[in-house]
């Protein structure tokens, strides 16, 4: 119970820090984002007083009210769920833009991360178990792939598999011309077809890290005394590998997985830029290009929430898997 409470307090503090950062950044930076936004909004259509008030509360120009008053107004605005109006997707409210783009990102990057984790852990387990085998010698190669800049790999694959040999489509999340979004088979097929190449690049560039981490933990755990005891007892190698060694070796990888799950939403920005995928990263970049500060703030908020949520979930799960963490706190 104490463990749970400690964790909850920490995440509330982190959330507060993120919200405050989100409040302070536009106010500390040079320039006047509110005027910029309002003048851009005005070119697209009439600005209602409520919209103006919402944007002022989020980005702040109220020179006559104190910083404290502005802060309360900002928090109130967030709690009521009004994140302002987007310029880039005028006249849609920011919350709606996020609602439309988020499923794409979570679907693509989330799935790719899970696949990469599962395959990487299995390969790492094999490499650590049989050291010096061909699979172990694969490790330096996959680690090299990790230091290849991710977007460059994506560009190369896009160049080779999109332009030179057109196996995969060049961009987009589905074929806009021939299928209609909804619960139908052609749409689903189109999504899979468009998502394969981005997912492949994510898996290729991230699998090495999982493999290396798991392999090193396997190697460290193998030299523990309890493994020697298990061997002395005459247990089958298979049982030792999966029940004794891998079970202990996977623990650090699980907490790494938590962090990367949270970064599913965050890490997608560059991917989506390369593949022009209709996810939240593209929305953020479009917002940056259009000086759409309200949308930028909203996206940053959602990304932070996702990271915090994923971390909290795994922290709680970790307490169940590894009782030592509960005992320590």
């Amino acid at each position: 119970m104490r463990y749970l409470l400690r964790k909850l307090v920490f995440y509330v503090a982190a959330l507060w820090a993120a919200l405050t950062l989100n409040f302070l950044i536009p106010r500390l930076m040079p320039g006047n984002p509110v005027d910029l936004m309002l003048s851009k909004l005005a070119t697209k259509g009439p600005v209602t007083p409520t919209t103006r008030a919402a944007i002022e509360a989020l980005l702040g120009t109220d020179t006559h009210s104190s910083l404290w008053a502005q802060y309360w107004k900002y928090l109130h605005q967030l709690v009521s769920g009004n994140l302002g109006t987007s310029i880039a997707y005028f006249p849609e409210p920011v919350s709606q833009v996020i609602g439309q783009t988020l499923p794409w990102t979570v679907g693509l990057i989330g799935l790719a991360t899970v696949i990469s984790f599962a395959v990487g852990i299995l390969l790492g387990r094999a490499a650590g178990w049989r050291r010096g085998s061909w699979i172990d010698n694969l490790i330096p190669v996959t680690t090299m792939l990790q230091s290849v800049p991710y977007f460059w790999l994506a560009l190369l694959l896009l160049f080779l598999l999109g332009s030179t040999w057109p196996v995969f489509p060049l961009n987009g999340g589905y074929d806009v011309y021939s299928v209609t979004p909804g619960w139908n088979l052609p749409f689903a097929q189109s999504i899979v077809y468009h998502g394969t190449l981005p997912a492949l690049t994510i898996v290729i560039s991230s699998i090495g890290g999982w493999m290396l981490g798991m392999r090193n933990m396997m190697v460290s755990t193998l030299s523990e005394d309890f493994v020697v005891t298990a061997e002395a007892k005459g247990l089958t190698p298979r049982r030792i590998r999966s029940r004794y060694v891998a079970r202990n070796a996977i623990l650090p990888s699980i907490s790494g997985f938590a962090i990367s799950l949270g970064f599913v939403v965050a890490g997608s920005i560059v991917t989506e830029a390369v593949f022009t995928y209709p996810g939240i990263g593209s929305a953020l970049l479009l917002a940056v290009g259009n000086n759409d500060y309200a949308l930028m703030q909203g996206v940053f908020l959602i990304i932070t929430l996702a990271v915090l949520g994923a971390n909290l979930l795994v922290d709680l799960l970790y307490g169940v898997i590894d009782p030592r963490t509960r005992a320590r706190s």
Partner: protein
Amino acid sequence: MTLKLGVGLGIAGVIVLFGVIGPLVVGNPSTVRDMGLTGPGNGFLLGTTQTGQDVFAQLAYATRGSLIIGVVVGALTLLLSSFFGIVGAFVGGWADEAFSLFTNIMLVIPGLPLVILISSYVPNKSIWLVAAVLAITSWAGSARVLRGFTLSVRSRDYVLAAKISGEKRWRILFVEILPNLIPLLASQVVFAVIFAILGEAGLSFLGLGASGSFTWGTMLFYAQNGLALRLGAWWWFAPPGLAIALFGAALSLINFSIDEIINPKLRSQTRAERNKWSVKA
């Protein structure tokens, strides 16, 4: 000196030399010529860009720019992470609690979106600002690693002995504890340098990097915008990416070697070798 370390140091050394000496030898990288998109050869080692700029000259300047980012961020990360990681763990008590809370909060706040957010508010960024922002968003991970290790060193018997024999606190920290942390610090700095170069490249690729600077990322940005991919101008977009990959790979090789020094379990003794001693059934 293992083979890994040798190869890593060799590749990294060549790239650093190229970044230091290259810009002194090549011509102006921004000179526009009347020969757009010519392949390698014809007096240009790596061909020309769309507007006839020398790709090789650009690569030399870009190498210098990216290395500067890497070094500055590496140094700043070292300072921040050792302050929050080592000092907090050494002092203990509420300072440790506060430092560790701060570190963990910085760790969970997503870095890249924050960098994008900050850089989108500042229209004209210098290379130093970009480096500072990258450092601020990336030190927390290594601070946590350092804290964990410092905690374990701090409670070792020889440190207690030093305390009892009346050594001063700063002396215990710098003479007794810090030398044990050096390999770990080194590998954290190497990580920070890789992270910074990749981060800056990503940022510049999105068009949010330092204005008017040459880095590997800005080269890729211009190549992408100049449709180098569609036009098949591989000599334009391949070299900067390859340079990042090679440098990153070299640094990871160096890091592997450091890891093997810190953790002898990872060294070459294999399970098969160990099993030779056991009694065969």
